[in-house]
């Protein structure tokens, strides 16, 4: 539905393709471990080498995510984080960065009760480029996906090893921005997939779509990122960053002087690995 090179996401992937390297897509949860620290991490991500930013919308029951991301959501919620804070973070980020795409990722319920139209209006106005809503399959596109596209927001879909060629057509129908290949059946932060197998799957997807394909789930180290990037247009790293945040906190879950730096340093190493690839 969206023509190429119309959105920040399209422009970013086109530019990286010209550079001949894969995008580093980084995931952090908004408001983790507190709003100020989270804002500092977000502001530092592009400089550290993040090409696309996924910002998690905290949810109490993230059924498709592993313990690391669930814990990050619960830290943010415990600190009093609200959906309007997530949107305000994007609005503030846009004041100094008009190029780095931001994709909000999460579950449907906090959007549904916002409700949908108000959420989408505010997200578009704040400068959100894309949405990943894990529990809204193409079967319910009328509710959120199509209204998002009307507002110029890309709706990014997950494709998994259980998505066969027939279903892939359904999944691709209203997808724009990029396609997110989940390299394992399982939750975020679980075991890593075999890079050779992933390469073959990405090739299968590329035969079905011209959209960029980013690979995620189970990518933790710069070496893994480099291996997964083979043939793909992007690599998503989430649980490893969120765990790095967790590791720097005090026993009471409070941010320390190391929190922002540790995350950005890992992003830097991941980015360097992709640039060397």
């Amino acid at each position: 539905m969206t023509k190429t090179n119309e959105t920040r996401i399209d422009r970013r992937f086109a530019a990286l393709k010209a550079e001949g390297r894969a995008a580093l897509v980084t995931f952090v949860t908004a408001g983790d471990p507190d709003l100020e620290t989270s804002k500092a991490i977000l502001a530092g991500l592009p400089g550290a080498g993040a090409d696309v930013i996924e910002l998690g919308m905290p949810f109490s029951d993230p059924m498709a995510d592993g313990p690391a991301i669930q814990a990050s959501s619960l830290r943010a919620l415990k600190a009093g984080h609200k959906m309007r804070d997530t949107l305000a973070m994007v609005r503030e980020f846009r004041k100094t960065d008009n190029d780095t795409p931001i994709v909000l990722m999460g579950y449907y319920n906090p959007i549904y009760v916002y409700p949908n139209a108000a959420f989408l209006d505010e997200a578009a106005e704040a400068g959100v480029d894309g949405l990943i809503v894990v529990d809204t399959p193409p079967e319910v596109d009328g509710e959120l996906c199509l209204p998002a596209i009307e507002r110029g927001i890309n709706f990014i879909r997950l494709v998994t090893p259980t998505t066969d060629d027939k279903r892939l057509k359904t999944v691709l129908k209203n997808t724009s921005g990029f396609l997110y290949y989940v390299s394992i059946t399982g939750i975020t932060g679980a075991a890593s997939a075999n890079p050779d197998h992933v390469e073959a799957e990405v090739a299968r997807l590329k035969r079905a779509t011209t959209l960029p394909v980013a690979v995620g789930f189970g990518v933790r180290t710069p070496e893994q990122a480099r291996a997964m990037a083979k043939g793909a247009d992007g690599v998503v790293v989430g649980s490893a960053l969120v765990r790095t945040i967790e590791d720097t906190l005090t026993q009471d879950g409070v941010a320390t002087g190391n929190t922002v730096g540790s995350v950005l340093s890992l992003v830097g190493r991941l980015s360097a690995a992709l640039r060397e690839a």
Partner: protein
Amino acid sequence: MASKEDKAADAKRNTLRAGPDAEGQFGLFGGRFVAETLMPLILDLETAYEAAKNDPAFQAELTNLLLHYGGRPSPLYYAERLTEHFRDIARDAGGTGGAKIYFKRDELNHTGSHKINNCLGQIQLARRMGKTRIIAETGAGQHGVAVATVCARFGLPCEIYMGATDVARQAPNVARMHMLGAKVNPVTAGAGTLKDAMNEALRDWVTNVRDTYYLIGTAAGPHPYPAMVRDFQAIIGNEVREQMMEREGRLPDTLVACIGGGSNAIGLFHPFLDDEGVAIYGVEAGGHGVEVENGHAASMSGGSPGVLHGNRTYLLQDAEGQILEGHSISAGLDYPGVGPEHAWLKDTGRVNYVPITDKEALEAFQLSAKLEGIIPALEPSHALAWVTKLAPTLPQDNILVMNMCGRGDKDVFAVAGYLGIKL
């Protein structure tokens, strides 16, 4: 004269029993809100269930199992002393009321509750689909025991997710599951109750989706589970219709059942939805009272519509759409959601949903034990507590059926604790 097809179409339009629609929705509620990994499997399950439902061999085998293994039909029992008790109360208040009380004895099924009806149906379906591993979630453990039982019976490995809090308060059922060869995984996330167990079961399913069948215990979750579980539980209401015609020569006037996710209730209610003269009550867990914030598990009386665990339904949630844990004395009722068909029946007004507090349920528990010699589970004790309020206000010729959906063996230790009885 209208053709047979026209009549069938008319009947469908005029019935409350035709749901869900093609999208798996009951009005606004229901649907399929799951991660992409699960979608192909959910669609497969729907196809497999439709085929099984229409296969006489499948139905015959299920009927045979329910009869000889499950212990159906369960008796319909006239609770004479309770009936007299309520009539005395009415008389003391200067009235002439006191409905005639019947219990549908689903606590007499194999494994001690209505849960086996659904498990026998779904295990047959899982085998038909060639699945080699079964997972399930459980709250009070009645569903876990029923799943462990059918897995033992058919030789399939089984893992049960149960909140750590519930593992502690439902120890007898945990022991049963172990004896039946199931692996019980305590879940420590959140408050360690049914919601958290369901999250973990979904995570297991996402990870092992190809060989694993997720045997959901209540009429909730993504389509087709709510419809499928309802169909397997509708045997309760169908038997009541037949048994009541034999005993009283007419249908009952009033139905009462407790609601957690709502599987026993929808099983009793569904065959009667089109009988306008039958008043229907679903009893939710009011915990410390619906006015106490997060102190209850009455998602319809004290919640709002939202999306969780694969379906849209009434949920206990805050203004931000974050799910609340809820509270009930009964581990089988403290789920923050409810089956989507109930959500729809609430909004259409066909069924009345009412809350009952922990305290009222405990009083009803003792009343049943002392007057009828039946120790009920804490879940149907909620239903009985509503009967206690309702029956004295109804005329004596009002026939009321309450589903005694589980027995209280599992709750003996917990209730003794609440009553200060030293064991």
